[in-house]
Every structure is written in structure tokens, then in C-alpha cells.
């Protein structure tokens, strides 16, 4: 085979190998720290559970069978996906106007605005989450204010609402950045043309701006969705014990129940489900946006 390649690709070979060399470091990094651990996880998920050791090297599909049969599994999977979906939708709705104005801002303002958008990421996730606790807890700032105004306290923490607030806050920058790039690529004259053809601002948005920004919407929503369903710190701190997501359950299965194969199987199963969903989503989107891309 190598000989055949050399013969066919005499001309392109040096260039191709040069390009391959450039991506080699990234590829190595991914292989060692991402692919190999995943392969390891995949292996463990087929090993047998044991009470004396993390696992016994006897292949079995029992872990998956148990998971698939347990309605609790599917309940947690469903709630995780649902939390991810709501987070994504809220992030999208909140981020779009920000991204639009960022994309259309004068160049000298753009840098500053960009820094402001990214600034939540400059604070570590733990510190930021504790910040939210101060604001959201039953005796927190917001509830103190509500009480001061003579209103009832709102349950903002240790429930899905708390987790949602925390997640949306962290992921908005990712969404904004994805959308901004895409919106920037839309010629403002297209919007002017639509207006002059009789479309109001609202219809111009839905008929021209939004369809043309779909590549950015796709990137942003996938990014936020995947990050949201795999997040651990925020749902566990702000959701308390009432919000049980797949990552939390996987960690508990492994660290508290010492069921390595069971936890691994759950992680792999969820990975597969996520992959399938993203693939499906992209297919649907690409069908809509085909003329653009």
C-alpha cells in the first residue's frame, strides 16, 4: 500500500505529508487524552462488576442489559436531555440579540463588547456557582429583596430552576460567540434590501437574517447542548439532590457504589444517545440550510 500511494501521489505527497505534520500534535493530544480513555471506558463497561476489585476482566453485556431495563435510567436520561434542551433554547433566545448587536457594532467598540461577553468565563466555575448561591438561596439577596417588598420567597435553588440559571449564565458566551461569527457574515445590505421590498423589521429577521445565521445557530446550540448535558458542578451545587443528571449519576455509581462497569456503561450509553441526537439535529438543519452552506 505505501508503495502504491507513493506512485499515485508523487506530486501531492510532500505537501500532504507537510499538512499532516501540522495537525499531528493536536491529533496526538486527542488520541492520548481523549480516545484512549474512552476506549478504556468502553472496555470497562463490558467487564463484570465485583465487590472485591473495581471490576473483573470477564466480558459481559449485563451492565447494559441492567441499564436498559431500568426505567430509572431512562428517567434520568430524559431529564438530563430536557435540562440541556431548555438551557440551549433559553441561551439562544437571550444570546441572539446580544450577538446581533455585537456583530453590527462599530469596530472600535467590538473588542470591548467581546471582552464583556466573555468575562463570565474569566471566573472559575466553582466561584461563580457560589456567587449564584449567595444570590439565589432561600435567605439570599434576591429573596431578601422580595421579602422586603412584601412578596413571597421564591424557590430559586436546589431545584431545576437553580441549575438552569447557573447553566444558562455560563453558556451564554459560547452561544454569543458562535452566533456573532455567523451574523457578521451577513451583509447588512441584504436586510436593507428586504426592508425596501416591503418587509418590516420582524419579517426581515425571520425571512433573511435568521435563516442566514443558521450555521451559527447550529454551532452554538450543539456546543451549549453538549456542554449542558455533560456539566457536573453546576447541577450538583445549584440543583442539590433534587436534580439528578446523567453525569451526577455516573459519578455516584462509580465513587459511591463502586460500580465501575455500571458507571462506565451508563457513560457510554449516554455518549451514544448524545451522538445520535447531534447527528440527527445536524441532518435536519443541513436540509434546511443547504443553499446557504
Amino acid at each position, binding site marked *: 500500500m505505501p508503495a502504491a500511494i507513493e506512485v499515485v501521489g508523487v506530486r501531492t505527497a510532500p505537501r500532504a505529508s507537510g499538512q499532516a505534520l501540522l495537525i499531528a500534535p493536536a491529533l496526538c493530544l486527542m488520541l492520548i487524552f481523549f480516545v484512549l480513555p474512552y476506549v478504556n471506558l468502553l472496555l470497562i463497561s463490558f467487564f463484570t462488576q465485583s465487590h472485591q476489585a473495581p471490576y473483573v476482566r470477564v466480558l459481559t453485556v449485563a451492565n447494559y442489559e441492567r441499564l436498559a431495563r431500568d426505567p430509572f435510567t431512562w428517567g434520568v436520561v430524559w431529564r438530563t436531555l430536557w435540562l440541556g434542551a431548555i438551557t440551549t433554547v433559553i441561551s439562544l433566545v437571550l444570546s441572539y440579540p446580544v450577538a446581533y448587536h455585537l456583530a453590527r457594532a462599530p469596530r472600535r467598540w467590538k473588542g470591548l463588547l467581546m471582552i464583556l461577553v466573555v468575562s463570565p468565563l474569566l471566573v472559575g466555575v466553582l466561584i461563580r456557582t457560589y456567587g449564584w448561591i449567595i444570590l439565589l438561596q432561600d435567605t439570599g439577596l434576591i429573596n431578601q429583596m422580595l421579602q422586603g417588598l412584601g412578596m413571597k420567597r421564591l424557590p430559586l435553588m436546589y431545584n431545576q430552576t437553580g441549575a438552569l440559571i447557573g447553566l444558562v449564565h455560563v453558556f451564554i458566551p459560547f452561544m454569543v460567540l458562535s452566533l456573532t461569527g455567523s451574523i457578521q457574515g451577513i*451583509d447588512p*445590505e*441584504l436586510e*436593507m*434590501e*428586504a*426592508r*425596501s*421590498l*416591503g*418587509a*418590516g*423589521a420582524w*419579517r426581515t429577521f425571520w*425571512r*433573511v437574517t435568521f*435563516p*442566514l445565521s443558521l450555521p451559527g445557530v447550529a454551532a452554538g446550540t450543539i456546543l451549549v447542548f453538549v456542554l449542558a448535558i455533560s456539566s457536573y458542578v453546576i447541577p450538583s451545587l445549584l440543583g442539590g439532590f433534587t436534580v439528578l443528571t446523567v453525569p451526577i449519576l455516573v459519578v455516584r455509581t462509580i465513587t459511591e457504589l463502586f460500580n465501575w462497569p455500571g458507571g462506565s456503561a451508563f457513560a457510554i450509553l449516554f455518549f451514544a444517545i448524545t451522538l445520535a441526537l447531534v447527528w440527527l439535529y445536524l441532518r435536519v438543519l443541513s436540509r434546511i*440550510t443547504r*443553499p*446557504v452552506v
Partner: protein
Amino acid sequence: MAEISLRGLTKRFGNAAAVHDLTLTLASGELVALLGPSGCGKTTTLRMIAGFETPTQGRVLLGDRDVTEAPPEKRSCGMVFQNYALFPHLTVRQNVAFGLEMQGVRRDVIDRRVIEILEKVGLGGLNKRYPRQLSGGQQQRTALARALVINPSVLLLDEPLANLDAKLREEMRFFIRSLVREFHITTLYVTHDQAEALVLADRVAVLIDGVLQQFDTPEAVYRRPRTVRVAAFIGLTNLIPGRVTARSGDRLVLETSIGPLRASGPADLREGMEAMLSIRPENLELGGRDLAAPRDGVNRLRGVVRERTYLGSLFDYRVDVGGDSPLRVQGGVNAVHQVDDEVTLSFDAAAGWALPGGWG
């Protein structure tokens, strides 16, 4: 069909005035070119008419309707941009149908009118293509069809031919003119290309640094410019500073560094005033060293050819006549003069046009 009327239109960005006190009225069905160098405020003017910029002062009237405060979608301006602004996610048919859909026209009527207009602009059969599958000329035609199909009250064109190659540009000029005639639609055509403006327009409005310099027929703008800036901007010209020493009727005599010259000029140019003489290179006649005495009213200068460039249909000479800079002369390929030849230059008093004031 309505006319466009701009009254004292001013647009300031910070302290800089992009457009200053512009008053301009286009008659119904008239094609007016708004001509000026880049950054002169043409596009800002167009955008104020279309409703994308709010004037700092002044009014915009379309027909007898004051639209200064109206949003763009309520103005019924057909627009064609320099890069056509075709919706990339829509087919040619969908692009052209867009405006009609916004008006709530019935589907079968839309289909009929789209087909009609596409035939008219020579795009029949391309309705299923996407913009990126079209050539530049076809994109241009699509943009025109899309703007015209909604029966706009006025048509606004922003450098519509700037992205086409020279040959296609030439062809599209005539196409646009015939289209505008056929639809009898009042059209403002923004361009920096003076040849385009002169060929296309019924009247040309010359805008320089946000100030309307002249609004007149192409011929008048070219032959009887009102300001030195117009003379210098439109076409090639030789500018010779001087002072008016005598005047009778529309003829006058200018005292210049290369001697007294007979010329013509506007009525407000009086004796004793500073003036600038503009002579187009094609109005200077080049002759041998020893010519018979000139007719009455013809200027005669002696000079030496410093440079000669072949332009295909004619030669471009730079002739030193003793002034500050050599004069440019363009002439036929019959009588050829060599560099360093001593020559005479002559021009009729009617061909020299004096303008009030010096440079600027």
C-alpha cells in the same frame, strides 16, 4: 409615478457633514445620475431617500408624500446595490417574488408576474437557480427584476455596474436605460464613474464633499461646468489660472501666465475677477511650427512636445507652453508629432470655458 424631491437635506456624522443642504428635484420618469468621487456623500443621500439613514435636517419627498419619518418598508423604493444583495438562501424566483409576498399578493398572481419580469430582463428559465450559480450580469438582472417587480414609486441604484467587467458594463448601461424608459420610473443612479453618468442620465447631479456642485444635462456638466471642482472631476481638462481683463457678451479675455487668452464664461464672471480657464484636451488643436495667422477669436500658443502616449484611437500629448504645467492634448493619429517637436496649439474661444475663482 412619483418624483423625488430633496429639500435642504443635511446629514452630519459627529461634526463632519456627509451631505450638506442638498436640494434636488427629479421630474417624473427622469433618470438622474448622482455623480461624485468616493466618500462624497452619494450613498448617504441614497440611504436617506430609502430610509436607512435619518437626515439631520431637511425633508425627503416621494411624489407629494413627505417620507422623512417613514420606515424603509413604507417608502416603496426599489433598490439595487453594488453587490446586488441577492438573498443567497433563495432561488432567483424566490428572490424576485419576495417583495410581492411582502405585499400579500396572491400566489398565482405572484407566479405570473415573476415569470413576466424574468422574461423581460432576459432571465427566463433561470428561476430555479441560486444566486451563486449566476454570472455577475445575471445577478445584476435578477436584482433589477426584484426591484422593479413591486412597481416601486422610485428606483434607487447604488453603483450597480461597479462589479462588472468593462464590456458587460457597457452593455448593461444601455439595458438599464431602456428598462427605466420602459417602466417610466423616476430613477436615481449613484455612481463615481463619470462616463457612466454622462451616457445614462437625463441629468447629472455632481456631488463633491457633500455639496451639490451642479445639476444639469450631461452636456452642460461636461462643457459648461459651474465650478472648478466639477471641471476637474469630470473628464480630463487643462486648468489655467488667470484674471479677467475684458468682457463682451459671453466672450472674455483672460490674462494668464502664458499670455492673454480668449474664452467664454458664465455671466457672473466680471472684469477684474480671478478665474480658472478649463480647456479639454480634445479641444486643443495641434499643428506644425509655421501656421498661417489664426482666424479671429482663435487662440494660438507655441510649445514643445514633452511626452507622447498612444491610446489606440488617439494620441495623448503633453505640450510645454511655458506655463506651470504642460498642457494635455488629445488628437487623431493622422498628423503625428514627435517628442521635442516645436508645435502650435490653437483653440477656439468657444472651446475655452472660464470659471470663477481659483483652485478649490
